[in-house]
């Protein structure tokens, strides 16, 4: 039931782009994306809802393929502040709780 994230880790230079993927074997109602910096709490980035609605940050975009139960997070023109671990959280249709993936570690270097 836990969503699978890929890649597990990414190293970028400042200004480069990255894509992080999240896939589930279950039908999804929504996909959430959070970023967590070392020693801190997760911080909300984006929600994608079944039906196409998106809520989130202006500088980060994401997609949700309902047929494949997959979501992708697009980080463009990466900044040093983008470094951290990115988690997707999936809400299965009919349930009220998130199941989080194992995370993708992103390091942006100067």
């Amino acid at each position, binding site marked *: 039931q*836990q969503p699978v994230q890929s890649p597990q880790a990414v190293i970028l230079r400042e200004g480069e782009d990255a894509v992080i993927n999240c896939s589930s074997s279950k039908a999804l*109602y*929504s996909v*959430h994306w959070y970023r967590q910096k070392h020693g*801190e*709490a*997760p*911080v*909300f980035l984006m*929600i994608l*809802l079944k039906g196409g609605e998106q*809520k989130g940050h202006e500088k980060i975009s994401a997609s949700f393929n309902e047929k494949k139960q997959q979501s992708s997070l697009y980080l463009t023109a990466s900044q040093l502040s983008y470094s951290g671990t990115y*988690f997707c*959280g999936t*809400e299965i249709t009919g*349930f*009220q*709780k*998130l*199941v*989080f*993936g*194992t*995370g993708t570690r992103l390091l942006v270097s100067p």
Partner: protein
Amino acid sequence: NAGVTQTPKFRILKIGQSMTLQCAQDMNHNYMYWYRQDPGMGLKLIYYSVGAGITDKGEVPNGYNVSRSTTEDFPLRLELAAPSQTSVYFCASSGLAGGSEQFFGPGTRLTVL
């Protein structure tokens, strides 16, 4: 607006001891959650609540208990602490179930020796 607050920030317990992790939110959110995060791992849901007086189990509820007597507070009780409960515990709240961002507290780092 303090958001979600958790106490204590750090705690060391001996095997077999008990303790309560406190969580409070001032956003009038109905939904509250307890997660644990082991080193280098993702978040695992322990318990959640959809409103005062209503709680339900998450993925890893064994060894824990919760109560929700008010909208604001959602304490997590550890009975008979075990080394396997060494983890960082996060409390979160949201205004709606799904489709709504979860606001996380700063976490409690618990070590059981």
